[in-house]
């Protein structure tokens, strides 16, 4: 009896929060995030911007892993395609300077093309083979970037990449990029939630539940897997160009398998299929080690342990979407 009262008392503020209408919840959150930079200073703004890029990557990979159920371990390859495409066409390297804003759709398209080309042969495979092949593909891309010196400068990297400009205004400070990345995140969230709640999203869910039955109900499995793969890749491409513009210089080591592993971890641990989950994952798994250097050494160790524990005890992640929780909850 006492236990129940205590639970109710703890629940009441939470119930109040959940009762706020959806649009107001979102406005408050976005408003809060938008006013942070002047309050927290340059260093923290930079950290949050970095976390924000991973949020974009996480939401993008979520389309592939969370919606279509494909374990892509080579996501970094598309990130690299976006970054290097921009660096080729907006730096002293070849003397071309295409504007940032024009390159965004171009990088998205190039990454999507890469995703489609990889996907066509690869998406017929079984889930675990798919994972290893995509991992291998990611590594191939990194080796190529590292060794095609004439094109990519190899380990020396590409420097003095153009920042975005609007008229005479240049994006230079962490705060500028913070808002750029915030806009990118909002766009990513918008597109993926629209997709999830559509004929395409339904097809993805059906495919996850029972692929053969879905095919027999008229869903072209290969086409929809390819779509998820390409769309996910395009978000990585956009993340890549923003990364390149923000850092001003990129090196092959920025595109190691670690990036793919980080994004996979943050989706799986944060919560499959859900946006709050991805944000939680990015803040905890990327943000905290970035700030606490002492912890950073143990970061990957913790990732490994968390992946194992999550798979055994809570495969849907910490904050999964309601549907994923349904699917993955163990029948007691």
């Amino acid at each position, binding site marked *: 009896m006492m236990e129940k009262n205590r639970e109710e008392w703890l629940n009441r503020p939470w119930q109040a929060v959940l009762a706020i209408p959806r649009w107001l919840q979102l406005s408050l959150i976005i408003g809060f995030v938008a006013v942070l930079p002047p309050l927290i200073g340059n260093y923290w703004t930079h950290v949050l911007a970095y976390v924000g890029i991973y949020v974009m990557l996480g939401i993008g990979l979520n389309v592939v892993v969370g919606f279509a159920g494909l374990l892509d371990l080579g996501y970094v390859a598309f990130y690299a395609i976006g970054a290097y495409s921009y660096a080729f066409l907006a730096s002293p390297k070849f003397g071309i300077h295409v504007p940032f804003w024009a390159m965004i759709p171009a990088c998205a398209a190039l990454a999507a093309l890469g995703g489609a080309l990889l996907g066509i042969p690869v998406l017929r495979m079984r889930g675990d083979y798919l994972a290893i092949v995509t991992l291998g593909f990611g590594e191939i891309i990194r080796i190529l970037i590292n060794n095609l010196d004439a094109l990519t400068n190899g380990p020396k990297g590409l420097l003095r990449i153009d920042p975005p400009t609007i008229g005479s205004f240049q994006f230079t400070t962490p705060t500028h990029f913070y808002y750029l990345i915030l806009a990118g995140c909002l766009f990513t969230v918008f597109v993926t939630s629209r997709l999830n709640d559509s004929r395409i999203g339904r097809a993805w869910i059906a495919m996850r*539940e029972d692929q053969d039955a879905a095919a027999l109900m008229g869903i*072209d499995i290969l086409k929809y897997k390819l779509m998820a793969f390409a769309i996910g890749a395009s978000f990585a491409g956009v993340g890549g160009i923003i990364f390149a513009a923000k850092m001003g210089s990129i090196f092959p080591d920025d595109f190691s398998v670690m990036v793919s592993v980080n994004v996979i971890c943050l989706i799986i641990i944060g919560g499959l299929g859900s946006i709050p989950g991805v944000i939680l994952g990015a803040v905890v798994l990327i943000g905290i080690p970035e700030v606490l250097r002492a912890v950073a050494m143990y970061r990957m160790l913790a990732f490994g342990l968390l992946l194992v524990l999550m798979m055994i005890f809570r495969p849907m992640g910490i904050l999964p979407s309601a549907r994923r929780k349904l699917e993955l909850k163990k029948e007691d």
Partner: protein
Amino acid sequence: MTALLEIRSVTKRFGGLHALTKVDLLIQEKMIAGLIGPNGAGKTTLFNAITGVYAPEEGSILFLGKQLIGRKRHEITAIGVARTFQNIRLFPNMSTAENVLVGRHCQMRAGVWGAVSRNRKTREEEAMAERKVMDLLRFVGLEGQEDQLAKNLPYGDQRRLEIARALAVEPQLLLLDEPTAGMNPQETLALTRFVARIRDELGLSILLIEHDMRVVMGISDRVTVLDHGIRIAEGPPEAIQRDPRVIEAYLGRPSERVRKRSRPSQKNL
């Protein structure tokens, strides 16, 4: 008159196992065709061959004149063939309405642009799909259950939902795989009447696999009998019931039957 479905000389082998051998079957429009035979006769295999799950080694399957063999599963569905399954295969964590909505997939067109922009064409398409879903749920008697998760529905309702989902495809041929399995006599009777309604009100043809002879003989216009992958008889129900080859397939040869007569028979011919 072109047949709706024309199966000619279809043969399907799995290594050394001859699942189907030179099977013929003809279905006209607005017809209920029964498909019976002892367990392992190849009935579900035939369904799988029609719907593109297996590719037969020999023969041809023509639907409205179009060859089905070699086509992908989703193409065959889009052409107008829908089915249910022996062991119900609903999407367990999707709601009743969502399950039926998935059936509408090939009748809708919205792509990435439509999904993201939610333009008027897409919104109208979604609204129409929802209306169709509600109509179908009413037709099968699941009105009011739209938001129930499919896995939580009682068995009889799950069977009906599967049929609703198949009807959402707007097929011209409906393949029902043992729809009355596990049902009591009242449910069986209701479903039998319902299947007849599908033919009469929606104008579909139905190919029906069944073990319950009352159902098959009760509503089929014609019955085909398979045994060990071979068609051993085809004709109107009354003829099939009296056909000695069919009786033999189910009950064994007359000499064996003498011994078996003393044991209760589970098959009612």
